[in-house]
């Protein structure tokens, strides 16, 4: 199928992953900027997911239900963009490879009240080589930091953009996605021709 010619009847599908710690605003962002519907999936528990506590056992099989944020943005007639929020808990790490595989890039949402919660996401995309940006979700009662302070705290490569956003605001989420796509494009084409 990979070698088949591109079927012009169908659009080019693009995937972006929205990551970050629990409560960082992933569900809010996916809902603000796309048509969403819940996507649930069952996982057979393996040694990869040891430590899962609330499981359901039926006839010897042990599974857990993982709910993912999932949204669609139609971009003209030729492209369609899908957003996937990572399952919040790190115990679902085994899911991330599926989501990150073939993704154009990732937005890591950071909450400055719990900045450390986004370290695992940053680590993950750095190690995988997935283009990502950090979006600082500006909660009303959160301490305000300069972007440079956040970059230092996250030990983030200077090339990785950091933006401030409001996950509840459609325009802010749209601009965050544009920053990511632009960053991913520049990584592919480090010396753009004018």
């Amino acid at each position, binding site marked *: *199928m990979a070698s088949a010619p591109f079927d012009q009847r169908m659009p080019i599908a693009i995937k972006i992953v929205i990551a970050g710690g629990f409560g960082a605003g992933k569900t809010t962002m996916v809902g603000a900027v796309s048509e969403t519907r819940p996507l649930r999936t069952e996982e057979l528990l393996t040694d990869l997911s040891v430590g899962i506590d609330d499981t359901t056992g039926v006839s010897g099989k042990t599974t857990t239900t993982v709910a993912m944020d999932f949204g669609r943005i139609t971009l003209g007639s030729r492209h369609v963009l899908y957003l996937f929020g990572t399952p919040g808990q790190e115990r679902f790490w085994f899911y991330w490879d599926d989501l990150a595989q073939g993704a154009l890039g990732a937005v890591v949402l950071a909450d400055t009240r719990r900045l450390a919660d986004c370290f695992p996401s940053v680590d993950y995309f750095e190690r995988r080589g997935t283009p990502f940006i950090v979006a600082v979700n500006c909660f009303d009662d959160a301490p305000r930091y300069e972007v440079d302070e956040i970059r230092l705290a996250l030990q983030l490569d200077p090339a990785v953009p950091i933006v401030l956003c409001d996950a509840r605001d459609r325009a802010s989420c749209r601009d965050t996605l544009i920053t990511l796509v632009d960053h991913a494009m520049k990584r592919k084409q480090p010396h753009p021709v004018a």
Partner: protein
Amino acid sequence: MTHQRPDRSTDPGLLRPFVVTRGRTKPAQATFTLITQVMAIAPAPADGLDPEHLAIMRLCAGPVSAAELAADLDLPPGAVYVLLDDLLRQGLIAVQNPRPTDHDDVNTFKAVIDGLRAL
């Protein structure tokens, strides 16, 4: 063509996917991803298809992703992949996986940026 209907009183979450796919957990042929595009290319035959197959045929009259089918059918993606494989082997649908080269084309990025700006 009869098979055990899912008993939702037992465990709606676990049992149903395996029942609708008759115990198969992996598609025999094609590989599918969450964003694989799917589209009906022939009318559904009058018989021989299970209700879930028919539901997919209705939902993919126009191009749609495997993830959207999974969400709309409330089935895990893995079960939807198995059903899609059945339909593909019967020549009822066309499927298209993202190509690794999609991300090599600067025009793809530009089209996504333009599309987002227009939101």
